[in-house]
């Protein structure tokens, strides 16, 4: 196990290096730059822009800039935002809580609901319920998150006035209930696609397991249907779901990008979009690396978990 983890960590570091190299290159392939936002300011001249560029070190060759960035990155200095001059790590951590809150709560919804729908679909295969769930999943997968978010705001905020139309909390309130109230719509909207995917995977995993010999044995022992279902079938069907959860993580993060914009949620996704708009290179790279680390770690943990719960899997 220890060897496996070390091996995987080595891989991950190499991957991170490649991600940073590709990211940095693409970022700088696009012409323009962080200073173009000031170009149309009254009284700004090209000479002054050049001076600012020089002070920011943007006039150096790109490979040099990259090396400078990467060596600092390795020792934990992720640079400073071009926009407000704050350290990138503190900018990211300032937006982290919002995204984690959103992603965790929508994961809870999607895993819980997705598992339930999947289990019911598998046990009542070809029933009316199963068909409804299947069609529902198709629809949910096809609806763009952005559109669904806007419809939800129109119906539940503007017409019914049940939920706030956005923001993470009311300024001056910030109680637990206030957070929860604001959290409902964005987390459900974000969960929608994952519920669909999750329920389809769960259904087919269940069907795989239901036909296995050990299930027949359990029935033959005289266990009740419920007990067979929950002790044997569902538990075994959940094993591949752990891997799926690892794969779903980046999807959730990219979904959060859209959801955070629609619901004015001050998270990493929106930070990333904003930084792209301003060509805030240090923050873009920071978010990119942070997400890459997050995803790699997620997959690693998923693999270890699978090995832990499934004795058939050995990590070499």
């Amino acid at each position: 196990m220890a060897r496996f983890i070390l091996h995987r960590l080595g891989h991950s570091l190499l991957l991170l290096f490649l991600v940073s190299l590709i990211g940095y290159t693409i970022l700088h392939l696009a012409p323009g730059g962080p200073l173009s936002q000031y170009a149309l300011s009254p009284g700004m001249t090209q000479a002054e822009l050049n001076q600012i560029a020089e002070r920011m070190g943007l006039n150096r060759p790109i490979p040099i800039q990259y090396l400078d960035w990467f060596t600092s990155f390795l020792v934990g200095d992720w640079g400073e935002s071009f926009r407000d001059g704050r350290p990138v790590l503190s900018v990211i951590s300032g937006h982290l809580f919002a995204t984690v809150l959103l992603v965790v709560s929508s994961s809870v919804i999607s895993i819980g609901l997705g598992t339930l729908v999947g289990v019911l679909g598998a046990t009542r295969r070809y029933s009316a319920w199963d068909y409804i769930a299947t069609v529902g999943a198709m629809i949910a997968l096809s609806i763009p998150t952005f559109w669904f978010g806007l419809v939800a705001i129109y119906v539940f905020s503007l017409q019914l006035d049940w939920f706030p139309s956005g923001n993470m909390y009311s300024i001056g309130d910030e109680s637990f209930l206030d957070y929860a109230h604001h959290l409902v719509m964005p987390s459900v909207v974000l969960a929608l696609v994952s519920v669909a995917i999750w329920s389809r995977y769960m259904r087919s995993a269940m069907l795989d397991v239901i036909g296995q010999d050990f299930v027949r044995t359990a029935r033959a022992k005289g266990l009740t249907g419920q007990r067979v279902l929950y002790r044997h079938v569902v538990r075994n069907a959940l094993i591949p779901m752990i891997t799926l959860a690892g794969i779903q993580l980046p999807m959730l993060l990219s979904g959060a990008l859209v959801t955070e914009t629609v619901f004015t949620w001050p998270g990493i996704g929106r930070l990333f979009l904003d930084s792209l708009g301003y060509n805030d290179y240090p923050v873009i790279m920071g978010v990119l690396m942070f997400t890459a680390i997050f995803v790699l770690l997620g997959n690693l943990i998923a693999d270890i978990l699978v090995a832990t719960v499934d004795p058939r899997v050995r990590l070499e």
Partner: protein
Amino acid sequence: MTTSKTTNLNRRNFLKTGTAGLTLLMSGVAGSRLAAQDASGQVIIGFSQEPTVLHPHMPHIEVDEGVHFNLFDPLFTVNSDGDFVPALATEVPTVENGGVSEDGLKWRVKLREGVTWHDGEPFTAEDVKFTIELQQNPNFSAMRRTGHELVRNIEVVNDHEITWEMESPFAPYASILSWTFIVPAHILADAEDPNQTDFRNSPVGTGAFSFGERVAGNYIQLNANPDWWGDGPYLETVIFRYIPDMTVLYTQFRTGDIDVIGLQGIQFDRFEQAKQLDDREVVITQASTVESISFNLGKPQFQDPAVREALYYALDKTTIVDAIYYGIPEPTESFLPKGSSYFHEDLPKSEYNLEKAKQILDEAGWVPGDDGVRVKDGVRLAFKNSTTAGNSVREQTQQFIQQDFAEIGVEMEISNLPPAVMWGEYWQMSEFDTAMVGIVYTTGPDPDVSNYFHSTAISAQGGAGQNTWQYKNETVDELLEEGASLFVQEERKTIYNKLQEVVREDLPFLPIFQYANLRGHKAGLEGFDPNVNVRIETWNVGEWRWA
């Protein structure tokens, strides 16, 4: 403690009891201090961009100024009528009152007494001296050096009086000072590196509001400054809320989550609906930006004035404004905004006349080639038109213009670029053919446009400035130099009227319309006073109050 709040993750935890108690304590303290000032209530202003740079002299964008105006004060400010109004100075220096010498070279400013910084320190002439010198500091990333570069021999006469000399007379300096926010010497003077100070994230000013907290990606909160020198503030807190999506911004205005919809405001296609909203006031406000089709006169197609004139005849402004811009902005002929005291009312009105356009081109010797596109001396009358990609309204306008231009034998190819590319070197160094662009030509309320039209302001030819058209006209140069050295308004008016006539005649760009914005606020908010002379409508929140 407020600064650590923005960076510290712990503030976001749900253990609100401690914070709540502290807030209660703080508001209790603030409340007793505010009682005399009668500040109450809060206003939430929705912006579609996030203010991030709170140091007013570091490079920033217009949304940042919406916050600066309320944290800081200039020596004097400019109101919505275009008049200077004293702020930290007791009177606006002019030739008449002796604040500016006849030749414009010596300035004397008397300062308000009893003004304190938000941290309690007294405001003095040293702060003014420091602020101007900061703009001249070569190690400082100053946003604007224009005008400040000419200041010499700043002398602090006493705590409340300061004098300086100008290297050469420069009339626009008054306007520049009207947006030069004074920053505290006692906090910034000792910084080792003027660019790396905490000031960016925890600013201290003399303004109507002091800095409360910034939650990145979310909002900035300002608190009433009970010791402000002006009348007011009447609001206890001001929140600048960042809402990135225009649709969501409008939705939150409808639901009442925000009280004021600022910056880009309400999109034009929602005007009819927005007017019907209960308890909301929606107003058309003039901005000083002028939209135009700008030519790169360095390209051979555009060196013939007949081409520019013909294209102006083929430009159907009325239809563009009515059909694409919902009739909200007004067509214009000048680069100066209507509302400026220098605006020329009687410039010749452009006329949409395709036959006339064809005739002009025929007479100038541009004859249609085999493909219908006109040619003269081997130069095809074909060009690209570029603007910010993704701006759908401008894209519609381009397509509309394209058809009319094709009608008169001119080929216009639409080639739009992402903002960072478009307004980078492509624009600054005159690499474009033509551009659809909105520009603020004026220096605040001042009509000086040397930075745009003087022949020494062409970056592509080694100059310093924004003359991206590469426009050169000796008369223009002379007028600009004369206008910038005169300090009496009536004399200047003659100069700038002449200038507007010459530019209208030369057409380095085809003016389309002056920008207007749709802003909205809840009924009952008083003091909201959009000002064409500043870049943002939250310039006077100190005067806002709830009825």
